[in-house]
Protein backbone atom coordinates (compact mmCIF):
# COMPACT_ATOMS: atom_id res chain seq x y z
CA UNK A 1 0.00 0.00 0.00
CA UNK A 2 1.08 3.48 -0.69
CA UNK A 3 1.50 6.69 1.18
CA UNK A 4 1.64 9.70 -1.13
CA UNK A 5 3.70 12.71 -0.25
CA UNK A 6 4.49 16.01 -1.94
CA UNK A 7 7.33 18.21 -0.74
CA UNK A 8 7.82 21.88 -1.54
CA UNK A 9 5.82 21.55 -4.75
CA UNK A 10 5.84 24.75 -6.83
CA UNK A 11 4.37 25.40 -10.27
CA UNK A 12 4.20 28.82 -11.87
CA UNK A 13 2.29 29.81 -14.99
CA UNK A 14 3.96 33.08 -15.87
CA UNK A 15 3.89 35.29 -12.80
CA UNK A 16 0.97 33.40 -11.24
CA UNK A 17 1.82 30.55 -8.92
CA UNK A 18 -0.63 27.71 -9.22
CA UNK A 19 1.27 25.86 -6.53
CA UNK A 20 3.47 27.56 -3.97
CA UNK A 21 5.68 25.36 -1.79
CA UNK A 22 3.01 22.77 -1.04
CA UNK A 23 4.09 20.06 1.37
CA UNK A 24 1.50 17.46 2.25
CA UNK A 25 1.22 13.78 3.19
CA UNK A 26 -1.71 11.68 1.99
CA UNK A 27 -1.96 8.75 4.39
CA UNK A 28 -1.90 5.18 3.12
CA UNK A 29 -5.41 3.91 2.41
CA UNK A 30 -7.02 7.21 3.36
CA UNK A 31 -9.60 9.29 1.57
CA UNK A 32 -8.13 12.76 1.27
CA UNK A 33 -10.17 15.74 0.06
CA UNK A 34 -8.47 18.72 -1.57
CA UNK A 35 -10.66 21.72 -1.20
CA UNK A 36 -10.45 25.32 -2.31
CA UNK A 37 -12.05 27.97 -4.44
CA UNK A 38 -11.44 27.93 -8.19
CA UNK A 39 -7.90 28.94 -9.01
CA UNK A 40 -6.63 27.75 -5.63
CA UNK A 41 -4.33 25.15 -7.18
CA UNK A 42 -6.19 22.03 -6.04
CA UNK A 43 -6.58 20.67 -9.56
CA UNK A 44 -2.97 21.53 -10.42
CA UNK A 45 -1.85 19.58 -7.36
CA UNK A 46 -3.92 16.54 -8.39
CA UNK A 47 -2.64 16.73 -11.97
CA UNK A 48 0.94 17.04 -10.72
CA UNK A 49 0.52 13.83 -8.71
CA UNK A 50 -1.01 12.18 -11.81
CA UNK A 51 1.85 13.42 -13.99
CA UNK A 52 -0.04 15.71 -16.35
CA UNK A 53 1.62 18.76 -14.80
CA UNK A 54 5.38 18.89 -14.29
CA UNK A 55 6.25 20.86 -11.16
CA UNK A 56 8.95 23.54 -11.38
CA UNK A 57 10.47 22.42 -8.09
CA UNK A 58 9.63 19.95 -5.36
CA UNK A 59 9.23 16.23 -5.03
CA UNK A 60 6.37 13.78 -5.38
CA UNK A 61 6.55 10.43 -3.65
CA UNK A 62 4.35 7.44 -4.38
CA UNK A 63 5.37 5.14 -1.53
CA UNK A 64 9.16 5.22 -1.60
CA UNK A 65 9.45 6.09 -5.31
CA UNK A 66 10.06 9.68 -6.37
CA UNK A 67 7.97 10.15 -9.51
CA UNK A 68 8.52 13.73 -10.72
CA UNK A 69 10.39 12.39 -13.77
CA UNK A 70 8.19 9.34 -14.31
CA UNK A 71 5.67 9.72 -17.17
CA UNK A 72 1.97 9.34 -16.42
CA UNK A 73 1.73 5.91 -18.04
CA UNK A 74 4.35 4.46 -15.69
CA UNK A 75 3.03 5.92 -12.45
CA UNK A 76 0.48 3.17 -11.77
CA UNK A 77 -2.30 5.54 -10.88
CA UNK A 78 -6.03 5.38 -11.37
CA UNK A 79 -7.88 8.52 -12.27
CA UNK A 80 -11.52 9.48 -12.57
CA UNK A 81 -12.21 12.56 -14.64
CA UNK A 82 -14.92 15.16 -14.30
CA UNK A 83 -16.29 14.19 -17.73
CA UNK A 84 -15.66 10.47 -16.89
CA UNK A 85 -13.72 10.21 -20.18
CA UNK A 86 -15.12 6.78 -21.06
CA UNK A 87 -13.90 5.61 -24.47
CA UNK A 88 -16.99 6.04 -26.66
CA UNK A 89 -15.96 3.38 -29.20
CA UNK A 90 -15.66 0.65 -26.55
CA UNK A 91 -18.23 -1.19 -24.48
CA UNK A 92 -18.33 -0.89 -20.71
CA UNK A 93 -16.35 -4.13 -20.33
CA UNK A 94 -13.77 -3.00 -22.91
CA UNK A 95 -13.40 0.30 -21.09
CA UNK A 96 -12.75 -1.46 -17.80
CA UNK A 97 -10.42 -3.98 -19.47
CA UNK A 98 -8.33 -1.26 -21.15
CA UNK A 99 -5.78 -0.89 -18.34
CA UNK A 100 -5.44 -4.67 -18.02
CA UNK A 101 -5.00 -5.10 -21.76
CA UNK A 102 -2.23 -2.49 -21.79
CA UNK A 103 -0.57 -4.42 -18.95
CA UNK A 104 -0.89 -7.64 -20.98
CA UNK A 105 -2.90 -9.43 -18.30
CA UNK A 106 -3.94 -12.74 -19.95
CA UNK A 107 -7.52 -13.15 -21.16
CA UNK A 108 -9.19 -15.34 -18.50
CA UNK A 109 -7.65 -13.37 -15.64
CA UNK A 110 -8.60 -10.14 -17.36
CA UNK A 111 -12.21 -11.20 -17.79
CA UNK A 112 -12.46 -12.26 -14.16
CA UNK A 113 -11.09 -8.95 -12.89
CA UNK A 114 -13.39 -6.93 -15.16
CA UNK A 115 -16.40 -8.86 -13.84
CA UNK A 116 -15.21 -8.33 -10.25
CA UNK A 117 -14.74 -4.60 -10.78
CA UNK A 118 -18.16 -4.21 -12.41
CA UNK A 119 -19.76 -6.17 -9.57
CA UNK A 120 -18.02 -3.93 -7.06
CA UNK A 121 -19.61 -0.84 -8.60
CA UNK A 122 -22.93 -2.73 -8.93
CA UNK A 123 -22.92 -2.77 -12.70
CA UNK A 124 -22.66 -6.52 -13.20
CA UNK A 125 -24.45 -7.34 -16.46
CA UNK A 126 -23.79 -3.95 -18.03
CA UNK A 127 -20.50 -5.04 -19.63
CA UNK A 128 -21.90 -5.24 -23.18
CA UNK A 129 -23.39 -1.76 -23.24
CA UNK A 130 -21.88 1.34 -24.78
CA UNK A 131 -21.18 4.33 -22.53
CA UNK A 132 -23.74 6.34 -24.51
CA UNK A 133 -26.45 3.97 -23.27
CA UNK A 134 -25.73 4.68 -19.60
CA UNK A 135 -26.98 7.33 -17.19
CA UNK A 136 -24.63 9.84 -15.59
CA UNK A 137 -24.42 7.88 -12.35
CA UNK A 138 -23.70 4.64 -14.21
CA UNK A 139 -20.94 6.26 -16.27
CA UNK A 140 -19.44 7.51 -13.04
CA UNK A 141 -19.40 3.93 -11.72
CA UNK A 142 -17.79 2.61 -14.91
CA UNK A 143 -15.10 5.30 -14.65
CA UNK A 144 -14.51 4.20 -11.07
CA UNK A 145 -14.31 0.51 -12.02
CA UNK A 146 -11.90 1.28 -14.85
CA UNK A 147 -9.67 3.27 -12.50
CA UNK A 148 -9.45 0.64 -9.74
CA UNK A 149 -9.31 -2.57 -11.79
CA UNK A 150 -5.56 -2.16 -12.36
CA UNK A 151 -5.01 -1.93 -8.59
CA UNK A 152 -3.29 1.45 -8.79
CA UNK A 153 -1.07 2.82 -6.07
CA UNK A 154 -3.24 5.89 -5.77
CA UNK A 155 -6.71 6.80 -6.96
CA UNK A 156 -7.15 10.39 -8.12
CA UNK A 157 -10.64 11.83 -8.47
CA UNK A 158 -11.07 15.16 -10.23
CA UNK A 159 -14.43 16.63 -9.18
CA UNK A 160 -15.92 13.20 -9.72
CA UNK A 161 -19.50 14.06 -8.83
CA UNK A 162 -19.88 17.60 -10.12
CA UNK A 163 -21.65 16.54 -13.32
CA UNK A 164 -24.43 14.75 -11.43
CA UNK A 165 -27.63 16.29 -10.12
CA UNK A 166 -27.98 16.82 -6.42
CA UNK A 167 -29.97 13.76 -5.32
CA UNK A 168 -27.75 11.41 -7.32
CA UNK A 169 -24.66 13.12 -5.98
CA UNK A 170 -25.59 12.27 -2.39
CA UNK A 171 -26.15 8.62 -3.36
CA UNK A 172 -22.86 8.50 -5.23
CA UNK A 173 -21.00 10.01 -2.25
CA UNK A 174 -22.10 7.08 -0.11
CA UNK A 175 -21.25 4.71 -2.97
CA UNK A 176 -17.80 6.20 -3.54
CA UNK A 177 -16.98 5.95 0.12
CA UNK A 178 -18.10 2.29 0.20
CA UNK A 179 -16.04 1.39 -2.87
CA UNK A 180 -12.98 3.16 -1.53
CA UNK A 181 -13.29 1.35 1.84
CA UNK A 182 -13.59 -2.00 0.08
CA UNK A 183 -10.55 -1.58 -2.13
CA UNK A 184 -8.52 0.40 0.41
CA UNK A 185 -6.57 2.35 -2.21
CA UNK A 186 -5.12 5.69 -1.13
CA UNK A 187 -7.53 8.19 -2.63
CA UNK A 188 -7.12 11.88 -3.31
CA UNK A 189 -10.05 13.84 -4.60
CA UNK A 190 -10.59 17.41 -5.63
CA UNK A 191 -13.82 19.24 -5.02
CA UNK A 192 -15.12 22.74 -4.57
CA UNK A 193 -18.13 21.40 -2.68
CA UNK A 194 -17.28 21.65 1.01
CA UNK A 195 -20.17 19.44 2.08
CA UNK A 196 -18.90 16.71 -0.26
CA UNK A 197 -15.43 17.09 1.20
CA UNK A 198 -16.72 16.80 4.76
CA UNK A 199 -18.86 13.76 3.92
CA UNK A 200 -16.23 11.76 2.06
CA UNK A 201 -12.85 12.60 3.50
CA UNK A 202 -10.87 11.13 6.34
CA UNK A 203 -8.65 14.17 6.02
CA UNK A 204 -8.93 17.39 4.10
CA UNK A 205 -6.50 19.99 2.87
CA UNK A 206 -7.60 23.51 2.06
CA UNK A 207 -5.76 25.45 -0.62
CA UNK A 208 -5.83 29.13 -1.41
CA UNK A 209 -3.78 30.90 -4.08
CA UNK A 210 -1.55 27.86 -4.51
CA UNK A 211 -0.76 27.55 -0.83
CA UNK A 212 -1.86 24.92 1.63
CA UNK A 213 -3.81 26.85 4.24
CA UNK A 214 -4.91 24.01 6.48
CA UNK A 215 -4.81 20.25 6.75
CA UNK A 216 -6.44 17.85 9.17
CA UNK A 217 -9.52 15.74 9.83
CA UNK A 218 -12.75 17.41 8.73
CA UNK A 219 -13.92 17.68 12.34
CA UNK A 220 -10.68 19.18 13.62
CA UNK A 221 -10.63 21.77 10.84
CA UNK A 222 -14.30 22.58 11.22
CA UNK A 223 -14.12 22.90 15.01
CA UNK A 224 -10.89 24.87 15.00
CA UNK A 225 -10.52 26.74 11.69
CA UNK A 226 -7.76 29.05 13.03
CA UNK A 227 -8.11 31.62 10.25
CA UNK A 228 -11.05 33.49 8.79
CA UNK A 229 -10.66 32.05 5.26
CA UNK A 230 -10.91 28.47 6.51
CA UNK A 231 -13.76 29.37 8.86
CA UNK A 232 -15.78 30.88 6.03
CA UNK A 233 -14.81 28.34 3.39
CA UNK A 234 -15.60 25.25 5.45
CA UNK A 235 -19.14 25.75 6.65
CA UNK A 236 -20.63 29.10 7.48
CA UNK A 237 -19.14 31.46 10.03
CA UNK A 238 -19.88 34.81 11.59
CA UNK A 239 -16.50 36.45 11.98
CA UNK A 240 -16.27 39.12 14.70
CA UNK A 241 -13.22 41.33 14.85
CA UNK A 242 -12.07 43.76 17.52
CA UNK A 243 -9.07 44.89 19.53
CA UNK A 244 -7.49 42.45 21.96
CA UNK A 245 -7.20 43.92 25.49
CA UNK A 246 -5.97 42.56 28.77
CA UNK A 247 -9.49 41.45 29.70
CA UNK A 248 -10.51 40.00 26.33
CA UNK A 249 -11.62 41.16 22.88
CA UNK A 250 -13.19 44.62 22.60
CA UNK A 251 -15.73 44.76 19.78
CA UNK A 252 -16.86 47.82 17.80
CA UNK A 253 -20.00 48.33 19.89
CA UNK A 254 -17.97 48.33 23.13
CA UNK A 255 -18.77 44.72 24.11
CA UNK A 256 -15.87 42.99 25.86
CA UNK A 257 -15.68 39.26 25.21
CA UNK A 258 -13.66 37.83 28.10
CA UNK A 259 -11.13 35.09 27.60
CA UNK A 260 -10.44 35.85 23.90
CA UNK A 261 -6.80 36.59 23.13
CA UNK A 262 -6.93 36.74 19.31
CA UNK A 263 -8.02 39.71 17.15
CA UNK A 264 -11.01 37.80 15.77
CA UNK A 265 -13.38 34.95 16.53
CA UNK A 266 -15.70 32.83 14.42
CA UNK A 267 -19.16 31.83 15.57
CA UNK A 268 -20.93 29.03 13.71
CA UNK A 269 -24.57 29.95 12.95
CA UNK A 270 -25.75 26.79 14.69
CA UNK A 271 -23.82 27.67 17.88
CA UNK A 272 -25.75 30.89 18.42
CA UNK A 273 -28.86 31.24 20.54
CA UNK A 274 -31.16 34.25 20.86
CA UNK A 275 -33.08 35.92 23.67
CA UNK A 276 -35.30 38.99 24.01
CA UNK A 277 -34.36 39.95 27.60
CA UNK A 278 -30.57 40.39 28.09
CA UNK A 279 -29.07 36.95 28.82
CA UNK A 280 -26.95 36.43 31.91
CA UNK A 281 -23.58 35.85 30.19
CA UNK A 282 -20.75 38.07 28.97
CA UNK A 283 -20.71 36.14 25.66
CA UNK A 284 -23.50 38.08 24.03
CA UNK A 285 -24.29 40.79 21.50
CA UNK A 286 -27.23 43.03 20.92
CA UNK A 287 -28.34 42.90 17.28
CA UNK A 288 -31.49 43.55 15.30
CA UNK A 289 -33.57 40.91 13.57
CA UNK A 290 -33.41 41.67 9.85
CA UNK A 291 -34.94 38.61 8.22
CA UNK A 292 -36.24 35.17 8.98
CA UNK A 293 -35.77 32.45 6.41
CA UNK A 294 -37.71 29.19 6.42
CA UNK A 295 -35.94 26.29 4.76
CA UNK A 296 -37.62 23.12 5.99
CA UNK A 297 -36.33 21.44 9.11
CA UNK A 298 -34.05 24.33 10.01
CA UNK A 299 -34.62 28.02 9.95
CA UNK A 300 -32.22 30.92 9.62
CA UNK A 301 -32.27 34.31 11.25
CA UNK A 302 -30.39 37.09 9.54
CA UNK A 303 -29.37 39.73 12.03
CA UNK A 304 -27.89 43.14 11.68
CA UNK A 305 -25.09 44.04 14.09
CA UNK A 306 -23.10 47.22 13.56
CA UNK A 307 -23.82 47.07 9.84
CA UNK A 308 -22.57 43.47 9.66
CA UNK A 309 -24.91 40.61 8.79
CA UNK A 310 -24.87 37.72 11.22
CA UNK A 311 -26.58 34.39 10.73
CA UNK A 312 -28.19 32.09 13.23
CA UNK A 313 -29.58 28.68 12.33
CA UNK A 314 -31.74 26.55 14.56
CA UNK A 315 -34.36 23.86 14.39
CA UNK A 316 -37.69 25.31 13.24
CA UNK A 317 -39.47 24.64 16.54
CA UNK A 318 -36.91 26.74 18.42
CA UNK A 319 -37.76 29.70 16.20
CA UNK A 320 -41.44 30.00 17.08
CA UNK A 321 -41.55 32.92 19.54
CA UNK A 322 -39.81 35.58 17.54
CA UNK A 323 -40.23 39.32 17.88
CA UNK A 324 -41.19 41.24 14.75
CA UNK A 325 -38.56 41.84 12.06
CA UNK A 326 -36.64 45.00 12.95
CA UNK A 327 -36.84 44.41 16.73
CA UNK A 328 -33.71 44.26 18.89
CA UNK A 329 -32.59 40.78 19.87
CA UNK A 330 -29.77 39.39 22.02
CA UNK A 331 -27.44 36.79 20.63
CA UNK A 332 -25.46 34.59 23.02
CA UNK A 333 -23.27 31.52 22.90
CA UNK A 334 -21.30 29.23 25.18
CA UNK A 335 -17.73 30.44 25.70
CA UNK A 336 -16.32 27.33 23.99
CA UNK A 337 -18.26 28.10 20.77
CA UNK A 338 -16.11 31.16 20.08
CA UNK A 339 -13.46 29.82 17.68
CA UNK A 340 -10.22 31.77 17.98
CA UNK A 341 -8.96 33.16 14.64
CA UNK A 342 -5.48 34.51 14.12
CA UNK A 343 -6.66 36.93 11.46
CA UNK A 344 -9.82 38.67 10.35
CA UNK A 345 -9.64 37.45 6.74
Amino acid at each position, binding site marked *: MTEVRVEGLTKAYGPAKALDEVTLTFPDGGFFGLLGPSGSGKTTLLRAIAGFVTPDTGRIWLGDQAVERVP*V*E*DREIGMVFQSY*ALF*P*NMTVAENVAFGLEVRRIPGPDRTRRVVEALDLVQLGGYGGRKPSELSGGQRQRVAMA*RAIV*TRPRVLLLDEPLSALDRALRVDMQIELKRIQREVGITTIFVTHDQEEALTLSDRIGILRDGRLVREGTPRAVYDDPQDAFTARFLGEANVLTGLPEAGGLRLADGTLLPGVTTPAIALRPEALAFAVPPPDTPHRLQARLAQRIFSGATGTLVLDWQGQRLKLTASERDLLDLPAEGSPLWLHWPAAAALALRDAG
Partner: protein
Amino acid sequence: MIVVARAYLGLILVFLYAPIIVMGVMSLNASEFYALPFDFSTEWYERLFANEEVLAASWRSVWIALVVATVATTLGTMASLALWRHDFPGKRILQALLFPPIAVPWLIIGTAMLVFFFGIGLGRGTPAVVLGHVALALPYVIITVTARMQSFDRALDEAARSLGARSWTVARKVILPYASPGIIAGWLFAFAVSFDQFVVSYFLAEPGDSTLPVLIYTAIRKGFTPEINAIATIIIAVSMTLMIVAARFARFGGTR
Protein backbone atom coordinates in the same frame (compact mmCIF):
# COMPACT_ATOMS: atom_id res chain seq x y z
CA MET B 1 -45.89 30.37 -45.53
CA ILE B 2 -45.01 26.70 -45.36
CA VAL B 3 -46.48 26.19 -48.82
CA VAL B 4 -44.24 28.94 -50.20
CA ALA B 5 -41.20 27.47 -48.47
CA ARG B 6 -41.94 24.01 -49.84
CA ALA B 7 -42.47 25.35 -53.33
CA TYR B 8 -39.17 27.22 -53.10
CA LEU B 9 -37.30 24.15 -51.92
CA GLY B 10 -38.98 22.14 -54.66
CA LEU B 11 -37.85 24.61 -57.32
CA ILE B 12 -34.28 24.46 -56.06
CA LEU B 13 -34.29 20.68 -56.29
CA VAL B 14 -35.82 20.81 -59.79
CA PHE B 15 -33.18 23.29 -60.87
CA LEU B 16 -30.42 21.08 -59.48
CA TYR B 17 -31.64 17.71 -60.59
CA ALA B 18 -33.78 18.21 -63.73
CA PRO B 19 -30.84 18.31 -66.19
CA ILE B 20 -29.31 15.25 -64.55
CA ILE B 21 -32.58 13.36 -64.67
CA VAL B 22 -33.17 14.33 -68.32
CA MET B 23 -29.71 13.04 -69.13
CA GLY B 24 -30.30 9.80 -67.23
CA VAL B 25 -33.62 9.28 -69.01
CA MET B 26 -32.13 10.02 -72.41
CA SER B 27 -29.37 7.49 -71.79
CA LEU B 28 -32.14 4.92 -71.80
CA ASN B 29 -33.91 6.31 -74.92
CA ALA B 30 -33.39 4.44 -78.14
CA SER B 31 -33.31 7.60 -80.28
CA GLU B 32 -29.92 9.06 -81.04
CA PHE B 33 -31.48 12.50 -81.52
CA TYR B 34 -33.45 12.78 -78.28
CA ALA B 35 -36.65 12.08 -80.15
CA LEU B 36 -39.83 11.60 -78.18
CA PRO B 37 -41.87 9.56 -77.40
CA PHE B 38 -39.50 7.79 -75.09
CA ASP B 39 -38.53 4.37 -76.28
CA PHE B 40 -36.73 2.32 -73.62
CA SER B 41 -33.44 0.79 -74.68
CA THR B 42 -30.18 -0.24 -73.06
CA GLU B 43 -28.37 0.06 -76.35
CA TRP B 44 -26.13 2.94 -75.27
CA TYR B 45 -25.03 1.10 -72.17
CA GLU B 46 -24.29 -1.98 -74.25
CA ARG B 47 -22.25 0.05 -76.70
CA LEU B 48 -20.47 1.69 -73.81
CA PHE B 49 -19.37 -1.61 -72.29
CA ALA B 50 -18.16 -2.76 -75.70
CA ASN B 51 -16.01 0.33 -76.05
CA GLU B 52 -12.45 -0.64 -75.09
CA GLU B 53 -11.29 2.94 -74.88
CA VAL B 54 -14.03 3.93 -72.42
CA LEU B 55 -13.46 0.86 -70.30
CA ALA B 56 -9.71 1.49 -70.12
CA ALA B 57 -10.25 5.13 -69.15
CA SER B 58 -12.85 4.14 -66.53
CA TRP B 59 -10.53 1.60 -65.00
CA ARG B 60 -7.68 4.14 -65.00
CA SER B 61 -9.91 6.73 -63.34
CA VAL B 62 -10.95 4.29 -60.64
CA TRP B 63 -7.49 3.07 -59.73
CA ILE B 64 -6.04 6.58 -59.80
CA ALA B 65 -8.85 7.67 -57.49
CA LEU B 66 -8.17 4.71 -55.18
CA VAL B 67 -4.46 5.52 -54.99
CA VAL B 68 -5.11 9.24 -54.57
CA ALA B 69 -7.74 8.73 -51.87
CA THR B 70 -5.50 6.39 -49.90
CA VAL B 71 -2.38 8.53 -50.17
CA ALA B 72 -4.23 11.78 -49.45
CA THR B 73 -6.09 10.22 -46.51
CA THR B 74 -2.90 8.85 -44.98
CA LEU B 75 -1.02 12.12 -45.34
CA GLY B 76 -4.02 14.26 -44.44
CA THR B 77 -4.88 12.25 -41.33
CA MET B 78 -1.32 12.43 -40.08
CA ALA B 79 -1.26 16.16 -40.76
CA SER B 80 -4.55 16.90 -39.04
CA LEU B 81 -3.67 14.79 -36.00
CA ALA B 82 -0.35 16.62 -35.73
CA LEU B 83 -2.11 19.97 -36.04
CA TRP B 84 -4.68 18.86 -33.47
CA ARG B 85 -2.16 17.52 -31.01
CA HIS B 86 0.72 19.93 -31.09
CA ASP B 87 1.22 23.64 -30.84
CA PHE B 88 4.21 24.95 -32.69
CA PRO B 89 5.35 28.27 -34.11
CA GLY B 90 3.67 29.03 -37.43
CA LYS B 91 0.83 26.54 -36.88
CA ARG B 92 -1.87 29.10 -37.61
CA ILE B 93 -0.17 30.25 -40.80
CA LEU B 94 0.21 26.63 -41.91
CA GLN B 95 -3.47 25.94 -41.23
CA ALA B 96 -4.48 29.09 -43.10
CA LEU B 97 -2.36 28.05 -46.08
CA LEU B 98 -4.27 24.78 -46.41
CA PHE B 99 -7.45 26.46 -47.59
CA PRO B 100 -6.58 28.76 -50.52
CA PRO B 101 -5.88 25.85 -52.95
CA ILE B 102 -9.59 25.01 -52.71
CA ALA B 103 -10.43 28.51 -53.92
CA VAL B 104 -7.81 28.81 -56.67
CA PRO B 105 -9.36 28.05 -60.08
CA TRP B 106 -8.44 24.57 -61.30
CA LEU B 107 -7.37 25.98 -64.61
CA ILE B 108 -4.67 27.98 -62.87
CA ILE B 109 -3.65 25.14 -60.59
CA GLY B 110 -3.51 22.85 -63.63
CA THR B 111 -1.31 25.27 -65.55
CA ALA B 112 0.93 25.83 -62.55
CA MET B 113 1.32 22.10 -61.98
CA LEU B 114 2.06 21.44 -65.61
CA VAL B 115 4.78 24.09 -65.60
CA PHE B 116 6.11 22.81 -62.31
CA PHE B 117 6.18 19.13 -63.32
CA PHE B 118 7.97 19.99 -66.54
CA GLY B 119 10.33 22.17 -64.52
CA ILE B 120 11.32 19.30 -62.26
CA GLY B 121 11.58 16.89 -65.18
CA LEU B 122 8.56 14.75 -64.34
CA GLY B 123 6.52 15.97 -67.29
CA ARG B 124 3.04 14.70 -68.12
CA GLY B 125 1.72 11.26 -67.35
CA THR B 126 0.00 9.21 -64.71
CA PRO B 127 2.50 9.96 -61.89
CA ALA B 128 1.89 13.68 -62.47
CA VAL B 129 -1.88 13.11 -62.44
CA VAL B 130 -1.69 11.21 -59.15
CA LEU B 131 0.51 13.86 -57.53
CA GLY B 132 -1.75 16.64 -58.75
CA HIS B 133 -4.89 14.92 -57.49
CA VAL B 134 -3.32 14.22 -54.08
CA ALA B 135 -2.50 17.90 -53.73
CA LEU B 136 -6.08 18.81 -54.60
CA ALA B 137 -7.64 16.24 -52.29
CA LEU B 138 -5.42 16.84 -49.27
CA PRO B 139 -7.23 19.92 -47.90
CA TYR B 140 -10.56 18.06 -47.99
CA VAL B 141 -9.17 15.24 -45.89
CA ILE B 142 -7.55 17.64 -43.43
CA ILE B 143 -10.78 19.60 -43.07
CA THR B 144 -12.97 16.55 -42.40
CA VAL B 145 -10.56 14.89 -39.98
CA THR B 146 -9.89 18.16 -38.15
CA ALA B 147 -13.62 18.82 -37.88
CA ARG B 148 -14.10 15.40 -36.32
CA MET B 149 -11.29 15.90 -33.81
CA GLN B 150 -12.77 19.20 -32.63
CA SER B 151 -15.22 17.24 -30.52
CA PHE B 152 -12.58 14.93 -29.00
CA ASP B 153 -12.50 15.20 -25.21
CA ARG B 154 -8.83 15.52 -24.32
CA ALA B 155 -9.58 13.78 -21.06
CA LEU B 156 -9.87 10.58 -23.17
CA ASP B 157 -6.20 10.87 -24.03
CA GLU B 158 -5.33 11.54 -20.39
CA ALA B 159 -7.53 8.69 -19.21
CA ALA B 160 -5.78 6.25 -21.55
CA ARG B 161 -2.36 7.40 -20.36
CA SER B 162 -3.39 7.20 -16.71
CA LEU B 163 -4.31 3.58 -17.40
CA GLY B 164 -0.78 2.90 -18.60
CA ALA B 165 -1.11 3.29 -22.38
CA ARG B 166 1.87 4.68 -24.29
CA SER B 167 1.31 7.23 -27.03
CA TRP B 168 1.25 4.64 -29.83
CA THR B 169 -1.39 2.61 -28.00
CA VAL B 170 -3.41 5.75 -27.26
CA ALA B 171 -3.28 6.69 -30.94
CA ARG B 172 -4.27 3.22 -32.11
CA LYS B 173 -6.96 2.39 -29.55
CA VAL B 174 -8.45 5.75 -28.67
CA ILE B 175 -7.62 8.54 -31.11
CA LEU B 176 -7.85 6.70 -34.45
CA PRO B 177 -11.14 4.95 -33.62
CA TYR B 178 -12.55 8.31 -32.63
CA ALA B 179 -11.27 9.97 -35.80
CA SER B 180 -12.39 7.11 -38.07
CA PRO B 181 -15.71 8.59 -39.27
CA GLY B 182 -13.76 11.70 -40.29
CA ILE B 183 -11.06 9.59 -41.92
CA ILE B 184 -13.60 7.54 -43.91
CA ALA B 185 -15.43 10.70 -44.98
CA GLY B 186 -12.10 12.26 -45.97
CA TRP B 187 -11.21 9.18 -48.04
CA LEU B 188 -14.54 9.30 -49.85
CA PHE B 189 -14.14 13.02 -50.55
CA ALA B 190 -10.64 12.47 -51.84
CA PHE B 191 -11.87 9.65 -54.08
CA ALA B 192 -14.62 11.87 -55.47
CA VAL B 193 -12.27 14.82 -55.99
CA SER B 194 -9.94 12.63 -58.02
CA PHE B 195 -12.60 10.64 -59.86
CA ASP B 196 -14.50 13.78 -60.92
CA GLN B 197 -11.42 15.85 -61.71
CA PHE B 198 -11.24 17.11 -65.27
CA VAL B 199 -9.15 20.25 -65.61
CA VAL B 200 -6.03 19.12 -63.79
CA SER B 201 -6.22 15.68 -65.39
CA TYR B 202 -6.59 17.27 -68.82
CA PHE B 203 -3.42 19.25 -68.28
CA LEU B 204 -1.37 16.48 -66.73
CA ALA B 205 -2.49 13.32 -68.51
CA GLU B 206 -0.71 12.19 -71.65
CA PRO B 207 -2.86 11.80 -74.78
CA GLY B 208 -4.06 8.21 -75.10
CA ASP B 209 -3.62 7.76 -71.38
CA SER B 210 -6.53 9.89 -70.24
CA THR B 211 -8.97 9.51 -67.37
CA LEU B 212 -12.67 9.11 -67.92
CA PRO B 213 -13.67 12.82 -67.66
CA VAL B 214 -10.94 13.74 -70.13
CA LEU B 215 -12.05 10.99 -72.52
CA ILE B 216 -15.64 12.21 -72.32
CA TYR B 217 -14.54 15.74 -73.14
CA THR B 218 -12.62 14.51 -76.14
CA ALA B 219 -15.58 12.42 -77.26
CA ILE B 220 -17.94 15.38 -77.04
CA ARG B 221 -15.65 17.39 -79.27
CA LYS B 222 -15.83 14.67 -81.89
CA GLY B 223 -19.61 14.43 -81.73
CA PHE B 224 -22.20 13.92 -79.08
CA THR B 225 -23.79 10.48 -78.79
CA PRO B 226 -26.16 9.14 -76.13
CA GLU B 227 -23.25 6.94 -75.07
CA ILE B 228 -22.02 10.04 -73.26
CA ASN B 229 -25.34 10.21 -71.42
CA ALA B 230 -24.87 6.63 -70.30
CA ILE B 231 -21.33 7.06 -69.00
CA ALA B 232 -22.21 10.40 -67.38
CA THR B 233 -25.17 8.81 -65.63
CA ILE B 234 -22.90 6.11 -64.23
CA ILE B 235 -20.37 8.68 -63.04
CA ILE B 236 -23.07 10.75 -61.37
CA ALA B 237 -24.50 7.69 -59.63
CA VAL B 238 -21.05 6.72 -58.31
CA SER B 239 -20.15 10.25 -57.20
CA MET B 240 -23.46 10.95 -55.53
CA THR B 241 -23.37 7.63 -53.68
CA LEU B 242 -19.89 8.49 -52.41
CA MET B 243 -21.02 11.93 -51.29
CA ILE B 244 -24.08 10.58 -49.50
CA VAL B 245 -21.97 8.00 -47.68
CA ALA B 246 -19.34 10.64 -46.85
CA ALA B 247 -21.99 12.98 -45.52
CA ARG B 248 -23.36 10.20 -43.30
CA PHE B 249 -19.90 9.68 -41.82
CA ALA B 250 -19.05 13.33 -41.47
CA ARG B 251 -22.56 14.00 -40.19
CA PHE B 252 -23.18 17.04 -42.28
CA GLY B 253 -26.67 18.36 -41.92
CA GLY B 254 -26.92 17.63 -38.23
CA THR B 255 -26.44 14.58 -36.09
CA ARG B 256 -28.80 11.67 -36.11
